[in-house]
């Protein structure tokens, strides 16, 4: 079975719009959350969001958008985009450049693209409103393409002239973990030599605010403490937008091209809670099973894991479930237990973006030789007792990192990354 390695990363997210900025934010544990002007209304109880900087994407008309000059996108390509497709296009452009892939390396039968996105609530709302007001013949011909759940896949597959496997994944906050996991399967099974994987989220009012209705968002108006996974006082997550792109390929292909390898992806696992549509299992049973399967698939023991990037979104129930799952798999006060942190304290929770963003942060941490800590914890949740939640960075990178994600319906994904020797 071919070894699967990561050779390229791209980031457009609240803590930076390229790898240099993102790593700098991680090293300083500097968050990217702020007051969101569109939340500044008396009937909106939520105030903070993780916004992407240097992009102006509030209009539903892509021709109104402003984004950094380095990204050249033609009108006929841009017109079918939702905001997160623009983020995804830019992140993928970075990842392709980072992996030093030529256009022929991207557009061939051996290279595919998997995506994760929940579609664009804003574009859907805009197009349906227009349909009701002006009639269907006055709607943009690409309104569907820009709105529905597959938008990230449709647009990027066409724009990057993908000829291999392509598919979009939608499993809420586990989506981009599934996209990476199934991309791994595609390469490991020898069906593709290379997979590009992109997860994205608009992260705007239309995407984030509905979560306030289910009481999942933090009502804390202070950007410095609103997202504080594992803190006793945590009160919900902070919604975020952006995109992350990862290039997976066979080790053989990476070596043949002379590409710099970030790390290996030795395996992954998934399992479901079978419990509740929106509430995680109190004991984190599905997540524990996903972690066990990921380790088994990777040929590793719990003691081999140096670092876990937790899903922990800063919700009271979710973080507790995950802490229990971690104790189930790694034990309480293990002598060789992994360091654990949630980078969502810095990035906020990117929903469909979350899993791949955190895998990208783990790969960057392995490359740059440090382990990011869990920021904003003032009083550690007693539930975390017996686990090594690191509140500051460790000066060395993990050899084996694991990153968890859980989504609606009780879908759990655990991905494993391993430094190459």
């Amino acid at each position, binding site marked *: 079975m071919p070894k699967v390695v990561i050779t390229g990363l791209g980031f457009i997210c609240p803590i930076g719009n390229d790898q240099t900025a993102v790593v700098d934010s991680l090293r300083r544990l500097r968050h990217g959350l702020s007051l969101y002007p569109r939340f500044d209304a008396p009937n909106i109880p939520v105030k903070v969001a993780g916004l992407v900087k240097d992009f102006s994407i509030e209009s539903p008309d892509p021709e109104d958008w402003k984004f950094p000059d380095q990204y050249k996108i033609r*009108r006929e390509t841009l017109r079918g985009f939702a905001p997160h497709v623009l983020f995804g296009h830019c992140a993928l452009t970075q990842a392709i450049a980072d992996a030093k892939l030529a256009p022929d390396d991207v557009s061939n039968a051996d290279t595919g693209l998997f995506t994760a996105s929940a579609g664009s609530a804003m574009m859907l709302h805009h197009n349906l409103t227009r349909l009701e007001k002006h009639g269907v013949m006055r709607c943009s*011909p690409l309104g569907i393409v820009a709105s529905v759940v597959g938008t990230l896949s449709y647009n990027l597959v066409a724009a990057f002239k993908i000829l291999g496997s392509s598919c979009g994944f939608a499993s809420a906050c586990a989506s981009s973990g599934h996209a990476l996991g199934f991309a791994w399967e595609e390469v490991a099974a020898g069906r593709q030599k290379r997979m590009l994987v992109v997860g994205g989220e608009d992260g705007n009012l239309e995407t984030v605010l509905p979560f306030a209705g289910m009481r999942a968002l933090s009502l804390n108006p202070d950007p410095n403490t609103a997202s504080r996974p594992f803190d006793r006082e945590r009160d919900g997550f902070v919604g975020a937008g952006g995109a992350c792109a990862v290039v997976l390929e066979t080790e053989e292909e990476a070596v043949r091209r002379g590409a710099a390898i970030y790390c290996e992806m030795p395996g992954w696992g998934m399992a479901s809670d079978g419990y509740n549509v929106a509430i995680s299992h109190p004991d984190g049973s599905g997540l524990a099973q996903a972690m066990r399967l990921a380790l088994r698939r990777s040929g590793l023991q719990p003691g081999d894991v140096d670092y876990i990037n937790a899903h922990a979104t800063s919700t009271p129930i979710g973080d507790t479930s995950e802490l229990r799952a971690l104790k189930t798999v790694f034990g309480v006060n293990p002598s060789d237990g992994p360091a654990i942190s949630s980078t969502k304290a810095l990035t906020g929770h990117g929903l469909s973006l979350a899993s791949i963003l955190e895998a990208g942060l783990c790969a960057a941490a392995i490359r740059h030789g440090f382990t990011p800590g869990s920021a904003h914890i003032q009083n550690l949740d007693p539930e975390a007792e017996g686990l090594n939640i690191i509140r500051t960075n460790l000066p060395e990178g993990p050899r084996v990192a694991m990153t968890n994600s859980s989504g609606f319906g009780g879908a759990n994904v655990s991905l494993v990354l391993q430094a190459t020797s």
Partner: protein
Amino acid sequence: MSSIFWGMAMPELRPENGAFFQFPFSFFRVSSSVHVSNPLSPEAELDLREQLKRCSPETVEGALRYRTTGAPDGVGLVVIGIIERFLDPEVRPRLHAGGDGLRIFDDLGIDSLTMVEVVMLVEDVLQIKINNDELRDLRTIGDVKTYINCRIRGLPLPERPVHVHVAEIMALMPQQPPFLFVQEATLRSDEARGVYKIAGDEFFLEGHFKNNPVLPASIMLEALGQLAVLFLLKTKRAELTAPVSPSKIFFTACDGVRCQRICKAGDLLTLVVKPKRIKHPLGMFEGHITCGNEKVAFAEEICLTFDYAAADEAATVEGNGHAHAENGAASPTPPAARILQPPAGGAERGTARL
């Protein structure tokens, strides 16, 4: 322009297809009240300006003038201004430099979806409705100008052209690859337009010239001749009293040929022939070739001889485009060689001057 993409038909633009699609007043009322001042409400003007916010100021002013006065002059420029707004900046100079022959898809890169955007804006701004089937006939900027002019002035629409695709061309024509130089054609009763793209691997380029592959002028002339053959086979002209037999058309003469541009691999040639006189057994045509906005070649006169299909052949020839399959199979002469053979009494009548 294909109206089919990703398995979905292009949205029907027929007015009867939906109550959504009603305008406050019909186009014909506008045109019948030409030059009657009909000031726009401030809201309508704002709306129009918003819709045209990415168009040139001239386009906005032209549209406002039309909507206020109903005067048709300048409407063509408004439509060109709307098309321009949907073009990539690097393509825009082509629109201004190009003549009416500029092709919407091939030269400007406007695909069928962009065309829908153009049409929606034109419909809104000029308050007209454009049917989907009419839209398919608009292939060049000239087609668009003519169409809009007819609609605005209430004139009858021009004759609908016949589009002939490569498969039908191959089925109809006595010439076959690798000696067929018409890849797509649009036929009207007074004109045939064809397309030939130089692929670069044509057999004759190898020796023409040594280390410098250039399309031979004789092939340019051949391409125009082939388009004239297609015209005789496919167009129903009053002078043609019966279906023309594809196996009985031959070249006899050409006159006044001038070549103005060297053509190489990758060039997309537009071929045009217009009948000057057709009287059995001769058809006289004028022809020219362009590449983008550049002149390639001109022939004052290309003369073909033709004969009608025999009664048993005629049914096949007239019925559909599959006449050649039968003819070719029956012919002992390979199609490529046939056009080079002078017909009895044909070649002596004229002299080719190349």
